[in-house]
């Protein structure tokens, strides 16, 4: 029955169908975990991804995931842009303890994870690179949970601020480690220094140029929400594409883009950013794809180390926030909740990992063996922690809480 009425049998599933399945499965799983288990929808999206992914049903094969990379980049682009856009230099200037808190929180995490992995006999370079990745909180998860909970208040604001900062600090640390990784592979010092420098400066420059163009164009277009939204998405796509084409860091370029678009807008040409219902589309796809990419294989070998990674990371963030948060004017008890909210790790860490792996394949694989299990744990537990923290802080909207 190869040719029935001119059709090919069995039918070839096009990418469009797969994409529809992906969205639908994510959406339904998200609603189901929300209704029946009162869990954040993200957990459902990720579980749908795991089920569809190469490890379980294989419906989303490796080629599809590769092809969807552009979509993931774009989704992350939107999220990271908003994160950068929310980072307010004025606030950091007015309240200097905020930056001190963020720095402490990031460095404590880095040192704690490094020490824990060294204890489990990982090589110093692997431990350091994993610790740098572990410093960062997943912006996508915290922003999604905050959106879903319609959370508002000081714990929410600080969670987002510290996420923006620990992502940048984590990325910086990782970039500083790269020269040594490079030296492991080759002995060319110039090349070792040149690569990270190119990555950081090039990405930042791309972000700066994009923000400059965005502000000019927004001023010319005027204050119309719909037009500015299209402009913004177009610019984000351009930045993501450019960063990919030039081997720059998508994440650094976009976060700098968002940051400067907000903080250099002296004449306030831009309207406040509101990613509406359409944005949800990107987020569902992003989390399903992240779930599909989760790595559970080889979990047993490093299970203890991965658990230790997760636990010391939380303790380090907790310690830093409990000590420093009150100094920055957060209410008593708020620090611990912010630390809990900062737990998620996911898509962005995968991106950081892939960026590294793209440069040094062997090193990347070794690094992935310890980081991916930790990510898998936190992909599922992280959103729960964030949701719980925002509810405990009394910042979730009452209507979003299930009775």
């Amino acid at each position, binding site marked *: 029955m190869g040719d029935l009425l001119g059709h090919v049998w069995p039918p070839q599933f096009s990418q469009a169908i797969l994409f529809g399945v992906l969205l639908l499965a994510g959406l339904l799983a998200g609603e189901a975990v929300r209704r029946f288990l009162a869990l954040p929808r993200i957990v459902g999206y990720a579980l749908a991804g795991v089920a569809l992914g190469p490890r379980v049903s294989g419906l989303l094969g490796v080629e599809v995931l590769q092809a969807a990379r552009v979509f993931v980049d774009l989704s992350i682009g939107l999220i990271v842009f908003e994160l950068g856009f929310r980072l307010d230099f*004025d*606030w950091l200037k007015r*309240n200097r303890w905020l930056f001190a808190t963020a720095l402490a929180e990031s460095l404590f995490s880095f040192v704690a994870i490094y020490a824990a992995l060294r204890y489990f006999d990982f090589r110093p370079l692997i431990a350091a690179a994993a610790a740098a990745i572990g410093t960062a909180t997943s912006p996508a998860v915290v922003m999604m949970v905050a959106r879903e909970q319609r959370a508002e*208040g*000081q714990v929410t604001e600080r969670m987002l601020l510290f996420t923006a900062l620990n992502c940048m600090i984590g990325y910086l640390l990782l970039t500083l480690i790269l020269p040594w990784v490079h030296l492991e592979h080759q002995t060319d010092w110039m090349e070792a220094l040149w690569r990270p420098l190119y990555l950081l400066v090039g990405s930042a420059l791309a972000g700066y140029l994009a923000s400059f163009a965005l502000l000019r164009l927004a001023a010319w277009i*005027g204050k119309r929400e719909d037009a500015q939204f299209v402009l913004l998405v177009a610019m984000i796509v351009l930045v993501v594409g450019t960063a990919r084409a030039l081997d720059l860091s998508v994440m650094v370029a976009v976060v700098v883009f968002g940051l400067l678009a907000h903080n250099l807008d002296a004449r306030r040409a831009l309207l*406040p950013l509101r990613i509406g219902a359409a944005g949800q589309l990107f987020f569902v796809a992003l989390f399903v794809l992240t779930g599909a990419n989760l790595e559970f294989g080889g979990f047993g070998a490093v299970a203890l180390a991965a658990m230790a990674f997760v636990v010391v990371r939380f303790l380090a963030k907790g310690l830093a926030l409990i000590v420093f948060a009150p100094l*920055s*004017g957060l209410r008593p008890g708020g620090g611990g909740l912010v630390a809990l909210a900062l737990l998620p790790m996911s898509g962005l860490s995968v991106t950081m990992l892939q960026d590294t792996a793209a440069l040094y394949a062997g090193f990347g694989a070794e690094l992935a063996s310890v980081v991916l299990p930790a990510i898998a744990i936190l992909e599922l537990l992280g959103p729960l922690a964030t949701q719980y923290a925002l509810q405990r802080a009394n910042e979730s909207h009452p209507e979003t809480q299930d009775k």
Partner: protein
Amino acid sequence: MSDETTFKPSAATSIGVELELQLLRARDYDLSRDAQDLIARLDKVKLSGAVKPEITESMIELNSSVHLDYESLCAELETMRDAVSKEAGLLNVRVSGGGAHPFHDWADRRIYPTARFRNLLERYGYLAKQFTVFGQHIHVGCGSGDEAIYLVHMLTRYVPHFIALSAASPFYQGEDTSFQSSRLTAINAFPLSGHMPFVPDWSEFAEYFEKMRGFGIVESMKDFYWDIRPKPEYGTIEIRVCDTPLTVARAAQLAAYAQALVAYHLEERPQNPARDTYLVDRFNRFEACRYGIAGELVEPYLRRKKRIGEDILDTIAEVMPQAHRFGSAGALSELSAGVRAGTSDADWLRQRRTERGSLTDVVHAASDRWQGK
């Protein structure tokens, strides 16, 4: 007489104000919900006045202490404003005057978690959240309950003045309302809004109050949302029709005007209370909300129409001798100058919209102005 109906006399013509303020997110200038955190911080700051919660978490209320003259009131308000702005800054919250937030969505508001405010939500439903509007209340001290009743009746005639001079809520729910003050419309919806009944003295007022309490309609004086009401526990009358202006200076000027008016009426007793005042009251009030100083009011004693602005200028001239005594002649002259120039805070907000193109920018500019930048 019960506690509620015992009038505790205070220093006549002393003044104090309450200012309801908007708390804004620095990110997008929509209303924030940081009142609790901000008040907790301000509790640790030594202030001569008080900072209190209001019905939703997007508002706080500044209470001045009692003052005998304009200068000290103005100075205290400035000190309090600066303290509030500073603490709010640490939380990345901005503060602003103005009678209504131009574009917030009332459904997003959250009720401040106290028993009283929760009961209000229970009782009034969505009206409670829509009550997220921002007013200035002016207290003027009275020597006795009878004096307070007399003054409420006499000052009712000037309600349009206070509305027009303070009007700062032209935008509501993202639209230009065409009103100078849209805020009072939110208050009109409440069943106990309006004005005090035409009673001749305190004992009859107390009787009225007990009767309403007997009916189970009110529990305390707080339940009356009247334009001007006696406040027996403070020994004052309270003028409640003003929008919170865009600057503390304006707020203090309005209080100075009320003080001079009260002194003038207590000293000169130019007229007796007249029931007709309440016949024209609704009409006058609408004109002031809609058109501000350009509106017309019906003068109940002379029974003729007059431009509100013109009436304000005449009245200020009349009470100048009293103002000189309180050191507020300059303040009243500034009010007059504004009327002559035909400007108002509402107009200022509209100009910002025309200049900058979005309501977000209007709120930003208003907040810069309030914080004295």
